[in-house]
Protein backbone atom coordinates (compact mmCIF):
# COMPACT_ATOMS: atom_id res chain seq x y z
CA UNK A 1 0.00 0.00 0.00
CA UNK A 2 2.59 2.56 1.16
CA UNK A 3 5.06 1.68 -1.56
CA UNK A 4 2.53 1.89 -4.37
CA UNK A 5 1.32 5.25 -3.12
CA UNK A 6 4.91 6.40 -2.97
CA UNK A 7 5.58 5.35 -6.56
CA UNK A 8 2.39 7.01 -7.75
CA UNK A 9 3.21 10.31 -6.02
CA UNK A 10 6.84 10.11 -7.07
CA UNK A 11 5.79 9.70 -10.70
CA UNK A 12 3.56 12.73 -10.35
CA UNK A 13 6.42 14.72 -8.80
CA UNK A 14 8.74 13.91 -11.67
CA UNK A 15 6.03 14.59 -14.24
CA UNK A 16 5.14 18.01 -12.80
CA UNK A 17 8.81 18.89 -12.37
CA UNK A 18 9.38 18.11 -16.05
CA UNK A 19 6.34 20.21 -16.95
CA UNK A 20 7.88 23.14 -15.07
CA UNK A 21 10.79 23.00 -17.47
CA UNK A 22 8.84 22.27 -20.65
CA UNK A 23 5.92 24.69 -20.19
CA UNK A 24 6.14 27.57 -22.67
CA UNK A 25 4.32 30.08 -20.50
CA UNK A 26 6.19 31.18 -17.36
CA UNK A 27 2.93 31.39 -15.38
CA UNK A 28 2.16 27.78 -16.29
CA UNK A 29 5.66 26.86 -15.14
CA UNK A 30 4.99 28.38 -11.73
CA UNK A 31 1.64 26.62 -11.46
CA UNK A 32 3.32 23.28 -12.23
CA UNK A 33 5.94 24.12 -9.62
CA UNK A 34 3.14 24.61 -7.08
CA UNK A 35 1.80 21.16 -7.97
CA UNK A 36 5.33 19.74 -7.58
CA UNK A 37 5.54 21.20 -4.10
CA UNK A 38 2.15 19.76 -3.33
CA UNK A 39 3.39 16.29 -4.20
CA UNK A 40 6.38 16.94 -1.90
CA UNK A 41 3.90 17.66 0.88
CA UNK A 42 2.31 14.27 0.23
CA UNK A 43 5.77 12.68 0.41
CA UNK A 44 6.36 14.22 3.82
CA UNK A 45 3.02 12.89 5.05
CA UNK A 46 3.95 9.43 3.75
CA UNK A 47 7.18 9.72 5.78
CA UNK A 48 5.07 10.54 8.86
CA UNK A 49 6.52 14.05 9.05
CA UNK A 50 3.32 16.02 9.53
CA UNK A 51 4.98 19.18 10.75
CA UNK A 52 7.38 19.37 7.82
CA UNK A 53 4.50 18.64 5.47
CA UNK A 54 2.41 21.52 6.78
CA UNK A 55 5.37 23.90 6.88
CA UNK A 56 6.28 22.97 3.33
CA UNK A 57 2.64 23.63 2.45
CA UNK A 58 2.51 27.04 4.12
CA UNK A 59 5.95 28.36 3.25
CA UNK A 60 6.52 27.02 -0.25
CA UNK A 61 3.03 26.68 -1.65
CA UNK A 62 1.35 29.44 0.32
CA UNK A 63 4.00 32.12 0.42
CA UNK A 64 7.00 31.70 -1.86
CA UNK A 65 5.02 30.53 -4.86
CA UNK A 66 2.54 33.37 -4.39
CA UNK A 67 5.50 35.73 -4.59
CA UNK A 68 6.79 33.99 -7.73
CA UNK A 69 3.39 34.29 -9.32
CA UNK A 70 3.15 37.90 -8.16
CA UNK A 71 6.45 38.85 -9.77
CA UNK A 72 5.66 37.04 -13.02
CA UNK A 73 2.25 38.68 -13.25
CA UNK A 74 3.84 42.06 -12.59
CA UNK A 75 6.40 41.50 -15.36
CA UNK A 76 3.71 40.09 -17.66
CA UNK A 77 6.14 38.12 -19.79
CA UNK A 78 5.01 37.02 -23.22
CA UNK A 79 6.35 35.83 -26.52
CA UNK A 80 7.22 39.22 -27.96
CA UNK A 81 9.64 40.42 -25.33
CA UNK A 82 11.29 37.09 -24.72
CA UNK A 83 15.02 37.42 -25.36
CA UNK A 84 16.43 35.24 -28.15
CA UNK A 85 18.58 32.51 -26.76
CA UNK A 86 21.60 31.76 -28.89
CA UNK A 87 22.63 28.21 -29.77
CA UNK A 88 25.83 28.59 -27.77
CA UNK A 89 23.82 29.28 -24.60
CA UNK A 90 21.72 26.21 -25.22
CA UNK A 91 24.77 23.98 -25.68
CA UNK A 92 26.33 25.37 -22.52
CA UNK A 93 23.05 24.80 -20.66
CA UNK A 94 22.86 21.18 -21.78
CA UNK A 95 26.49 20.54 -20.76
CA UNK A 96 26.02 22.18 -17.34
CA UNK A 97 22.79 20.29 -16.71
CA UNK A 98 24.40 17.03 -17.80
CA UNK A 99 27.34 17.57 -15.44
CA UNK A 100 24.93 18.19 -12.55
CA UNK A 101 22.96 15.06 -13.43
CA UNK A 102 26.12 12.92 -13.55
CA UNK A 103 27.26 14.29 -10.18
CA UNK A 104 23.87 13.64 -8.60
CA UNK A 105 23.64 10.11 -9.94
CA UNK A 106 27.22 9.42 -8.82
CA UNK A 107 26.60 10.67 -5.30
CA UNK A 108 23.29 8.84 -5.03
CA UNK A 109 24.94 5.57 -6.09
CA UNK A 110 27.41 5.76 -3.23
CA UNK A 111 24.68 6.32 -0.63
CA UNK A 112 23.81 3.08 1.11
CA UNK A 113 20.05 2.58 0.76
CA UNK A 114 20.07 0.08 3.60
CA UNK A 115 20.32 2.86 6.19
CA UNK A 116 17.02 4.77 6.13
CA UNK A 117 16.99 7.28 8.98
CA UNK A 118 13.23 7.53 9.02
CA UNK A 119 12.61 3.91 9.88
CA UNK A 120 14.92 4.08 12.89
CA UNK A 121 12.79 6.78 14.48
CA UNK A 122 9.41 6.88 12.72
CA UNK A 123 7.92 9.63 14.87
CA UNK A 124 10.84 12.02 14.36
CA UNK A 125 8.79 14.25 12.07
CA UNK A 126 6.05 15.00 14.61
CA UNK A 127 6.18 18.54 15.89
CA UNK A 128 7.09 17.69 19.48
CA UNK A 129 10.06 15.45 18.65
CA UNK A 130 11.26 17.76 15.92
CA UNK A 131 11.21 20.74 18.31
CA UNK A 132 13.16 18.81 20.94
CA UNK A 133 15.77 17.85 18.35
CA UNK A 134 16.05 21.39 16.94
CA UNK A 135 16.30 23.12 20.30
CA UNK A 136 18.41 20.37 21.90
CA UNK A 137 21.37 18.92 20.01
CA UNK A 138 20.95 21.17 16.98
CA UNK A 139 20.47 24.45 18.84
CA UNK A 140 23.53 26.25 17.49
CA UNK A 141 23.07 25.47 13.78
CA UNK A 142 19.39 26.30 14.07
CA UNK A 143 20.05 29.69 15.64
CA UNK A 144 22.84 30.39 13.15
CA UNK A 145 20.59 29.66 10.18
CA UNK A 146 17.95 32.00 11.59
CA UNK A 147 20.63 34.70 11.89
CA UNK A 148 21.56 34.04 8.28
CA UNK A 149 17.95 34.50 7.20
CA UNK A 150 17.65 37.67 9.26
CA UNK A 151 20.74 39.19 7.70
CA UNK A 152 19.45 38.28 4.24
CA UNK A 153 16.16 39.99 5.07
CA UNK A 154 17.85 43.15 6.30
CA UNK A 155 20.01 43.16 3.19
CA UNK A 156 16.98 42.84 0.93
CA UNK A 157 15.21 45.73 2.67
CA UNK A 158 18.35 47.84 2.38
CA UNK A 159 18.64 47.12 -1.35
CA UNK A 160 15.06 48.15 -2.08
CA UNK A 161 15.31 51.37 -0.09
CA UNK A 162 15.90 54.38 -2.28
CA UNK A 163 18.77 56.64 -1.39
CA UNK A 164 17.07 59.80 -0.30
CA UNK A 165 19.96 62.25 -0.40
CA UNK A 166 23.29 61.89 -2.10
CA UNK A 167 25.00 65.07 -0.95
CA UNK A 168 28.41 64.00 0.24
Amino acid sequence: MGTSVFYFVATLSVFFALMVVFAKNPIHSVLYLILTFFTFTVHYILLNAQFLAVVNFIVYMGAIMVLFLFVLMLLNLNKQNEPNKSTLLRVIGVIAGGCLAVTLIGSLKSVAIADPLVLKNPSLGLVENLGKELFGPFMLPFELSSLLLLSAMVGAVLLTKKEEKTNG
Partner: protein
Amino acid sequence: MEIDFVIEKFILVTAIFAISLVIAMYSTYAERKVAAFLQDRLGPDRAGPFGILQPLADGVKMFMKEEIIPANANKWLFMIGPGLAMLCACIGTAVIPWGQDMMVGDRLVKLQVTDINVGLLYIFGVISLGVYGVMIGGWASNNKYSLLSSIRAASQNISYEIGMGLSIIALLLVTNSLSLREIVAQQHGWQWNVLYQPVGFIVFMVCAFAETNRAPFDLPECEAELNGGYTIEYSSMKLGFYLFAEYINMFVSSTIMAALYFGGYNYPGMDYMATLLGPTWAPLFGTLIFFLKIFAFIFFFMWVRWTIPRFRYDQLMNLGWKGLIPLAIANIIITGIVIAIVNKF
Protein backbone atom coordinates in the same frame (compact mmCIF):
# COMPACT_ATOMS: atom_id res chain seq x y z
CA MET B 1 -11.13 1.02 10.03
CA GLU B 2 -14.56 -0.36 10.80
CA ILE B 3 -17.49 0.40 8.60
CA ASP B 4 -19.39 2.30 11.31
CA PHE B 5 -16.36 4.56 11.76
CA VAL B 6 -16.48 5.41 8.05
CA ILE B 7 -20.24 5.99 8.21
CA GLU B 8 -19.86 8.23 11.26
CA LYS B 9 -17.21 10.38 9.59
CA PHE B 10 -19.18 10.48 6.36
CA ILE B 11 -22.26 11.78 8.17
CA LEU B 12 -20.13 14.36 9.99
CA VAL B 13 -18.44 15.57 6.80
CA THR B 14 -21.74 15.82 4.95
CA ALA B 15 -23.36 17.67 7.84
CA ILE B 16 -20.50 20.17 8.14
CA PHE B 17 -20.41 20.71 4.39
CA ALA B 18 -24.17 21.28 4.25
CA ILE B 19 -24.12 23.57 7.27
CA SER B 20 -21.31 25.72 5.87
CA LEU B 21 -23.12 26.04 2.54
CA VAL B 22 -26.44 26.93 4.17
CA ILE B 23 -24.80 29.44 6.49
CA ALA B 24 -22.91 30.99 3.58
CA MET B 25 -26.18 31.15 1.60
CA TYR B 26 -28.03 32.88 4.39
CA SER B 27 -25.06 35.14 5.06
CA THR B 28 -25.79 36.79 1.72
CA TYR B 29 -29.34 37.39 2.89
CA ALA B 30 -28.18 38.53 6.33
CA GLU B 31 -25.68 40.88 4.75
CA ARG B 32 -28.40 42.64 2.78
CA LYS B 33 -30.67 42.82 5.80
CA VAL B 34 -27.87 44.19 7.99
CA ALA B 35 -26.92 46.70 5.32
CA ALA B 36 -30.54 47.72 4.97
CA PHE B 37 -30.90 48.07 8.73
CA LEU B 38 -27.77 50.21 9.00
CA GLN B 39 -28.91 52.42 6.12
CA ASP B 40 -32.50 52.66 7.33
CA ARG B 41 -33.95 50.61 4.45
CA LEU B 42 -36.04 47.44 4.34
CA GLY B 43 -33.78 45.16 2.33
CA PRO B 44 -35.01 42.17 0.31
CA ASP B 45 -38.64 41.40 1.24
CA ARG B 46 -40.28 40.06 -1.95
CA ALA B 47 -39.28 36.39 -2.20
CA GLY B 48 -41.19 34.59 0.52
CA PRO B 49 -42.02 36.00 3.96
CA PHE B 50 -39.42 38.65 4.96
CA GLY B 51 -37.59 37.81 1.73
CA ILE B 52 -36.42 34.54 3.28
CA LEU B 53 -36.24 32.80 -0.13
CA GLN B 54 -34.02 35.52 -1.62
CA PRO B 55 -30.80 33.37 -1.52
CA LEU B 56 -32.58 30.61 -3.47
CA ALA B 57 -33.80 33.13 -6.03
CA ASP B 58 -30.25 34.48 -6.37
CA GLY B 59 -28.88 30.97 -6.79
CA VAL B 60 -31.37 30.15 -9.55
CA LYS B 61 -30.59 33.45 -11.24
CA MET B 62 -26.86 32.71 -11.16
CA PHE B 63 -27.36 29.25 -12.69
CA MET B 64 -29.62 30.56 -15.44
CA LYS B 65 -27.33 33.36 -16.60
CA GLU B 66 -25.43 32.95 -19.83
CA GLU B 67 -21.98 31.54 -19.45
CA ILE B 68 -19.33 33.69 -21.10
CA ILE B 69 -15.67 32.80 -21.40
CA PRO B 70 -13.68 35.65 -22.97
CA ALA B 71 -12.07 34.74 -26.29
CA ASN B 72 -8.56 35.65 -25.18
CA ALA B 73 -8.84 34.17 -21.74
CA ASN B 74 -6.85 31.13 -20.73
CA LYS B 75 -9.76 28.71 -20.80
CA TRP B 76 -8.61 26.05 -18.33
CA LEU B 77 -7.21 28.40 -15.74
CA PHE B 78 -10.28 30.59 -16.13
CA MET B 79 -12.40 27.62 -15.09
CA ILE B 80 -10.02 26.38 -12.39
CA GLY B 81 -9.98 29.78 -10.63
CA PRO B 82 -13.48 29.77 -9.08
CA GLY B 83 -13.28 26.05 -8.34
CA LEU B 84 -10.04 26.54 -6.45
CA ALA B 85 -11.51 29.44 -4.50
CA MET B 86 -14.46 27.25 -3.49
CA LEU B 87 -12.28 24.24 -2.65
CA CYS B 88 -9.92 26.19 -0.40
CA ALA B 89 -12.90 27.77 1.35
CA CYS B 90 -14.54 24.40 2.06
CA ILE B 91 -11.65 22.27 3.34
CA GLY B 92 -10.73 24.57 6.23
CA THR B 93 -13.44 23.25 8.55
CA ALA B 94 -12.04 19.69 8.62
CA VAL B 95 -10.01 20.15 11.79
CA ILE B 96 -12.46 22.26 13.79
CA PRO B 97 -13.72 20.55 16.96
CA TRP B 98 -17.44 21.30 16.87
CA GLY B 99 -18.28 19.96 20.30
CA GLN B 100 -17.28 17.68 23.14
CA ASP B 101 -17.40 13.91 22.66
CA MET B 102 -21.01 12.86 22.42
CA MET B 103 -22.69 9.65 23.50
CA VAL B 104 -25.03 8.24 20.86
CA GLY B 105 -26.52 5.08 22.32
CA ASP B 106 -23.42 3.47 23.82
CA ARG B 107 -21.05 4.84 21.21
CA LEU B 108 -18.66 7.75 21.77
CA VAL B 109 -18.81 10.10 18.79
CA LYS B 110 -16.16 12.76 18.26
CA LEU B 111 -17.64 15.94 16.81
CA GLN B 112 -14.53 16.59 14.76
CA VAL B 113 -13.64 15.23 11.35
CA THR B 114 -9.96 14.73 12.08
CA ASP B 115 -7.61 15.69 14.86
CA ILE B 116 -4.18 16.11 13.30
CA ASN B 117 -1.54 17.29 15.74
CA VAL B 118 -0.71 20.32 13.59
CA GLY B 119 -4.35 21.34 13.07
CA LEU B 120 -3.74 25.03 13.60
CA LEU B 121 -1.00 25.08 10.98
CA TYR B 122 -3.25 23.16 8.59
CA ILE B 123 -5.87 25.91 8.81
CA PHE B 124 -3.17 28.50 8.33
CA GLY B 125 -1.98 26.65 5.23
CA VAL B 126 -5.48 26.44 3.77
CA ILE B 127 -6.01 30.15 4.35
CA SER B 128 -2.73 30.97 2.64
CA LEU B 129 -3.74 28.79 -0.30
CA GLY B 130 -7.04 30.65 -0.76
CA VAL B 131 -5.41 33.47 -2.66
CA TYR B 132 -4.60 31.20 -5.63
CA GLY B 133 -8.23 31.13 -6.72
CA VAL B 134 -8.23 34.90 -7.01
CA MET B 135 -4.78 35.09 -8.58
CA ILE B 136 -5.28 32.37 -11.18
CA GLY B 137 -8.77 33.55 -12.12
CA GLY B 138 -7.66 37.17 -12.32
CA TRP B 139 -4.68 36.39 -14.50
CA ALA B 140 -6.54 33.97 -16.78
CA SER B 141 -9.25 36.56 -17.49
CA ASN B 142 -6.72 38.48 -19.59
CA ASN B 143 -8.02 41.82 -18.41
CA LYS B 144 -5.96 44.67 -17.01
CA TYR B 145 -8.33 45.26 -14.11
CA SER B 146 -8.33 41.58 -13.20
CA LEU B 147 -4.56 41.44 -13.34
CA LEU B 148 -4.20 44.46 -11.08
CA SER B 149 -6.67 42.89 -8.71
CA SER B 150 -4.72 39.60 -8.67
CA ILE B 151 -1.52 41.42 -7.86
CA ARG B 152 -3.22 43.34 -5.11
CA ALA B 153 -4.73 40.18 -3.66
CA ALA B 154 -1.33 38.48 -3.64
CA SER B 155 0.55 41.25 -1.90
CA GLN B 156 -2.24 41.88 0.58
CA ASN B 157 -2.47 38.20 1.46
CA ILE B 158 1.26 37.74 1.91
CA SER B 159 1.53 40.85 4.07
CA TYR B 160 -1.29 39.97 6.41
CA GLU B 161 -0.35 36.31 6.63
CA ILE B 162 2.80 37.36 8.46
CA GLY B 163 0.86 39.32 11.06
CA MET B 164 -1.57 36.46 11.44
CA GLY B 165 1.20 33.90 11.88
CA LEU B 166 2.92 36.04 14.49
CA SER B 167 -0.29 36.48 16.47
CA ILE B 168 -0.77 32.70 16.38
CA ILE B 169 2.75 32.18 17.76
CA ALA B 170 1.85 34.23 20.85
CA LEU B 171 -1.27 32.09 21.24
CA LEU B 172 0.82 28.92 20.99
CA LEU B 173 3.04 30.14 23.81
CA VAL B 174 -0.08 30.22 25.98
CA THR B 175 -1.67 26.96 24.83
CA ASN B 176 1.46 24.80 24.32
CA SER B 177 -0.31 22.83 21.61
CA LEU B 178 -0.91 22.94 17.88
CA SER B 179 -3.92 20.64 18.04
CA LEU B 180 -7.18 22.54 17.81
CA ARG B 181 -8.90 19.91 19.91
CA GLU B 182 -6.57 20.56 22.82
CA ILE B 183 -6.61 24.32 22.37
CA VAL B 184 -10.40 24.39 22.60
CA ALA B 185 -10.55 21.85 25.45
CA GLN B 186 -8.16 24.00 27.48
CA GLN B 187 -10.59 26.91 27.46
CA HIS B 188 -13.04 25.08 29.71
CA GLY B 189 -15.78 27.27 31.15
CA TRP B 190 -14.61 30.86 31.29
CA GLN B 191 -10.91 30.42 30.54
CA TRP B 192 -11.11 31.80 27.06
CA ASN B 193 -7.86 32.66 25.33
CA VAL B 194 -9.03 36.16 24.53
CA LEU B 195 -8.56 36.98 28.22
CA TYR B 196 -4.90 35.99 28.00
CA GLN B 197 -4.25 37.24 24.47
CA PRO B 198 -6.36 40.36 23.83
CA VAL B 199 -3.73 42.03 21.63
CA GLY B 200 -3.10 38.83 19.74
CA PHE B 201 -6.82 38.50 19.13
CA ILE B 202 -7.11 42.02 17.71
CA VAL B 203 -4.16 41.44 15.38
CA PHE B 204 -5.60 38.09 14.32
CA MET B 205 -9.02 39.57 13.65
CA VAL B 206 -7.73 42.46 11.55
CA CYS B 207 -5.63 39.98 9.55
CA ALA B 208 -8.66 37.73 9.13
CA PHE B 209 -10.56 40.64 7.60
CA ALA B 210 -7.72 41.18 5.15
CA GLU B 211 -7.31 37.49 4.32
CA THR B 212 -10.99 37.08 3.50
CA ASN B 213 -10.93 40.21 1.32
CA ARG B 214 -13.69 41.78 3.36
CA ALA B 215 -14.26 45.49 3.74
CA PRO B 216 -12.46 47.64 4.81
CA PHE B 217 -9.72 45.60 3.10
CA ASP B 218 -11.60 44.50 -0.03
CA LEU B 219 -9.11 46.17 -2.34
CA PRO B 220 -8.89 43.30 -4.84
CA GLU B 221 -12.56 43.81 -5.73
CA CYS B 222 -12.68 47.55 -5.24
CA GLU B 223 -15.55 48.80 -7.44
CA ALA B 224 -14.42 52.39 -7.63
CA GLU B 225 -10.94 51.66 -9.00
CA LEU B 226 -11.07 48.19 -10.52
CA ASN B 227 -14.71 47.65 -11.53
CA GLY B 228 -14.99 44.56 -9.39
CA GLY B 229 -11.43 43.36 -9.89
CA TYR B 230 -10.89 39.67 -10.51
CA THR B 231 -14.60 38.97 -11.02
CA ILE B 232 -14.90 41.43 -13.91
CA GLU B 233 -14.91 38.84 -16.74
CA TYR B 234 -16.85 36.21 -14.84
CA SER B 235 -20.51 35.54 -15.36
CA SER B 236 -23.05 32.96 -14.31
CA MET B 237 -22.20 30.43 -11.61
CA LYS B 238 -18.45 31.05 -11.85
CA LEU B 239 -19.09 34.53 -10.53
CA GLY B 240 -21.45 32.93 -8.05
CA PHE B 241 -18.66 30.65 -6.82
CA TYR B 242 -16.33 33.58 -6.20
CA LEU B 243 -18.97 35.52 -4.30
CA PHE B 244 -20.02 32.41 -2.42
CA ALA B 245 -16.45 31.46 -1.51
CA GLU B 246 -16.08 34.83 0.18
CA TYR B 247 -19.02 34.07 2.46
CA ILE B 248 -17.74 30.57 3.25
CA ASN B 249 -14.36 32.10 4.08
CA MET B 250 -16.11 34.51 6.38
CA PHE B 251 -17.85 31.61 8.10
CA VAL B 252 -14.58 29.69 8.42
CA SER B 253 -12.67 32.65 9.85
CA SER B 254 -15.49 33.35 12.29
CA THR B 255 -15.32 29.70 13.35
CA ILE B 256 -11.56 29.86 13.83
CA MET B 257 -11.75 33.06 15.85
CA ALA B 258 -14.53 31.65 18.03
CA ALA B 259 -12.59 28.40 18.53
CA LEU B 260 -9.15 29.87 19.14
CA TYR B 261 -9.98 32.89 21.24
CA PHE B 262 -13.59 32.66 22.42
CA GLY B 263 -13.67 29.15 23.80
CA GLY B 264 -15.38 27.31 20.94
CA TYR B 265 -18.06 25.10 22.49
CA ASN B 266 -17.13 26.16 26.05
CA TYR B 267 -19.40 28.41 28.07
CA PRO B 268 -19.66 29.33 31.75
CA GLY B 269 -21.73 26.83 33.71
CA MET B 270 -21.13 24.00 31.23
CA ASP B 271 -20.40 21.48 33.99
CA TYR B 272 -23.81 22.14 35.52
CA MET B 273 -25.47 21.81 32.11
CA ALA B 274 -23.58 18.54 31.52
CA THR B 275 -25.14 17.00 34.60
CA LEU B 276 -28.52 18.43 33.70
CA LEU B 277 -28.70 17.37 30.04
CA GLY B 278 -26.69 14.16 30.08
CA PRO B 279 -23.85 13.04 27.77
CA THR B 280 -25.92 13.13 24.58
CA TRP B 281 -27.52 16.55 24.64
CA ALA B 282 -25.00 18.61 26.60
CA PRO B 283 -22.33 18.46 23.83
CA LEU B 284 -25.00 19.44 21.29
CA PHE B 285 -25.94 22.39 23.46
CA GLY B 286 -22.24 23.35 23.49
CA THR B 287 -22.22 23.16 19.70
CA LEU B 288 -25.24 25.43 19.62
CA ILE B 289 -23.38 27.97 21.79
CA PHE B 290 -20.43 27.64 19.40
CA PHE B 291 -22.66 28.51 16.47
CA LEU B 292 -24.09 31.49 18.32
CA LYS B 293 -20.54 32.79 18.76
CA ILE B 294 -19.87 32.20 15.07
CA PHE B 295 -23.02 34.12 14.10
CA ALA B 296 -21.93 36.98 16.35
CA PHE B 297 -18.63 37.14 14.48
CA ILE B 298 -20.35 36.99 11.09
CA PHE B 299 -22.56 39.86 12.17
CA PHE B 300 -19.45 41.73 13.26
CA PHE B 301 -17.92 41.21 9.80
CA MET B 302 -21.04 42.75 8.23
CA TRP B 303 -21.29 45.53 10.76
CA VAL B 304 -17.72 46.58 9.97
CA ARG B 305 -18.34 46.39 6.24
CA TRP B 306 -21.21 48.85 6.37
CA THR B 307 -19.54 51.16 8.88
CA ILE B 308 -15.91 51.66 7.91
CA PRO B 309 -14.92 52.98 4.46
CA ARG B 310 -12.35 51.14 2.36
CA PHE B 311 -8.66 51.71 3.03
CA ARG B 312 -6.34 53.17 0.43
CA TYR B 313 -3.70 50.75 -0.76
CA ASP B 314 -0.74 52.47 0.92
CA GLN B 315 -2.74 52.72 4.12
CA LEU B 316 -3.37 48.98 3.94
CA MET B 317 0.32 48.21 3.53
CA ASN B 318 1.33 50.66 6.27
CA LEU B 319 -1.15 49.14 8.68
CA GLY B 320 0.04 45.63 7.90
CA TRP B 321 3.79 46.13 7.93
CA LYS B 322 4.27 49.06 10.28
CA GLY B 323 1.31 48.55 12.59
CA LEU B 324 0.28 44.93 12.99
CA ILE B 325 3.61 43.12 12.53
CA PRO B 326 5.54 45.17 15.16
CA LEU B 327 2.53 44.91 17.47
CA ALA B 328 2.41 41.13 17.03
CA ILE B 329 6.18 40.80 17.66
CA ALA B 330 5.93 42.93 20.81
CA ASN B 331 3.03 40.73 21.88
CA ILE B 332 5.18 37.59 21.44
CA ILE B 333 8.03 39.06 23.47
CA ILE B 334 5.79 40.27 26.31
CA THR B 335 3.86 36.98 26.38
CA GLY B 336 7.14 35.06 26.53
CA ILE B 337 8.48 37.17 29.39
CA VAL B 338 5.23 36.91 31.36
CA ILE B 339 5.09 33.12 30.89
CA ALA B 340 8.73 32.80 32.00
CA ILE B 341 8.01 34.87 35.15
CA VAL B 342 4.80 32.96 35.93
CA ASN B 343 6.55 29.61 35.54
CA LYS B 344 9.37 30.77 37.81
CA PHE B 345 7.14 31.57 40.79
